[in-house]
């Protein structure tokens, strides 16, 4: 298993999350609305960042399935805030050059006439740098 | 004139229930520490009046250490918390007066920690010895 200490520290600093607080109850994953779309689930994000096994997360589509609905943050009994870790890993991925998940030329294909601007700006914020 | 080898003088206040017993255990296990350390038994570390510490320095002590039960283990439930707060204030004031922080210490030693007691005293005595004689309050000293 790859242990990426530098990235681990960076993610912890960026997110303000202490993954050691996790007591492995799985409530984050129990509450996650995007669970079935994810290869790595919220509790795994916490666990894998804690153990430094971060490369698989960086490459995973799971990063773009989190809805940022914060249900895991509010319901975690230990105050771990998994969504903040997911966000940090996602940023670590898309901040790399040419790693934008969403590009402007793809946008028109995704639109219908009713879609609110909010969806487009949000998607850009989440998926691109 | 004969130059006497410098030996630091260290006063250790130990609470009766944990640290004094820890010192006894160090003795039982024959764990050596410098003879410069002289122990005064108090019922609880919170019995140590800042006045006692000042008096020791005034009378020529080179270091003062106060040992009590670990937080949460105080025989009197909360005495060591008072100690921690009072001594933090006292030590920073002493530091301001020029009595270095290394000359003062509060340490938690349980009755089971003979080894810790000896190690603490060795370490403390070494640090104090390195600072040399404490002359700061000499002018206030009531010399006979």
């Amino acid at each position: 298993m790859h242990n990426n200490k530098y990235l681990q520290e960076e993610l912890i600093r960026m997110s303000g999350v202490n993954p050691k607080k996790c007591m492995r109850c799985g409530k984050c994953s129990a509450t996650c609305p995007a669970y079935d779309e994810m290869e790595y689930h919220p509790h795994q994000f916490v666990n894998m960042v804690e153990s430094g096994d971060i490369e698989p997360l960086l490459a995973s589509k799971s990063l773009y399935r989190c809805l940022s609905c914060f249900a895991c943050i509010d319901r975690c009994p230990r105050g771990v805030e998994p969504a903040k870790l997911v966000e940090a890993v996602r940023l670590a991925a898309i901040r790399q050059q040419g790693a934008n998940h969403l590009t402007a030329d793809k946008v028109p294909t995704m639109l219908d006439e009713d879609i609110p601007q909010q969806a487009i700006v949000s998607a850009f914020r989440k998926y691109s740098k | 004139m004969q130059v006497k080898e410098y030996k630091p003088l260290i006063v250790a206040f130990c609470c009766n229930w944990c640290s004094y017993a820890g010192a006894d255990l160090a003795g039982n296990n024959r764990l050596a520490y410098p003879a410069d350390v002289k122990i005064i038994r108090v019922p609880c570390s919170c019995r140590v009046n800042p006045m006692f510490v000042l008096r020791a320095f005034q009378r020529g002590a080179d270091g003062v250490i106060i040992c009590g039960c670990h937080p949460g283990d105080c025989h009197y439930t909360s005495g060591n918390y008072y100690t921690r707060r009072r001594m933090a204030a006292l030590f920073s004031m002493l530091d301001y007066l020029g009595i270095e922080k290394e000359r003062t210490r509060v340490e938690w030693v349980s009755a089971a920690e003979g080894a810790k007691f000896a190690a603490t005293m060795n370490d403390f005595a070494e640090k104090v010895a390195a600072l040399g004689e404490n002359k700061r309050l000499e002018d206030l000293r009531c010399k006979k």
Partner: protein
Amino acid sequence: MKVSYFPGCTLKNKAKDLDVYARKSAEALGVTLEEIENWQCCGGVFSTARDEVATKLSSVRALKEAASKDQPLVTVCSACHNVIKQTNHAMQTDKEFASKVNNYIADGVYEGETEVYHYLEMLRDVVGYDELKKKVVNSFKGKKIAAYYGCLLLRPNSVMKMDDPENPSIMEDFISAIGATPVVYAKRNECCGGYIAMESPELAKKSSNAVIENAKAAGAEMIITACPLCRYNLIKNGADIPVVYFTELLAEALGVKEDTNA
């Protein structure tokens, strides 16, 4: 009473109703919404990363303008509210972040002094639901209405502090105040799918459907929301009961709906 108002980008385009009815109704309730000058889009989502600074500047500028007028800042779109309130909280609690932000802020520093209200909080805490009740001219008596909170209004609760995040009542009390019967259902604080509608319409569909089904099973004849994206997702994904902005019902209840040309 005058308050600063941040409408947000969607309310100027696809969700004009939400905005226009909000202003008219506020006027009828004795509150003037003063639109922040030169506001910029809040960005739609708040980045929880502490080193994301640039994306939060527009919110801080809006907050600072409200502060300069010594007014609370009122928002009506759930997303704007979430972003601005979380940004304000970060400015109050994260010194390192705040100092970075203030490097980019002209004329002095901002440290989170503005109070941020959602329009619903304004109704509940400033106007008062009892006061609102007195001003209702068209009652929705007998109408069974389900409130849809989504996630942005309530979470994270440690920052938003609007209501009990698991069993909120601020919208239900609003529904009661305009004479209708609130329908309580468990999925009212679950996510509609949000911006994932772009990336994975299937996931948005699944999430939205669960909300609609749950509301209908509880007997809802109509769903109200404060979020354009929630409304879009619910309608797009097969809501067969009306999904409307709460401000529209408010304007109608207050008898000011017809004055508008939304």
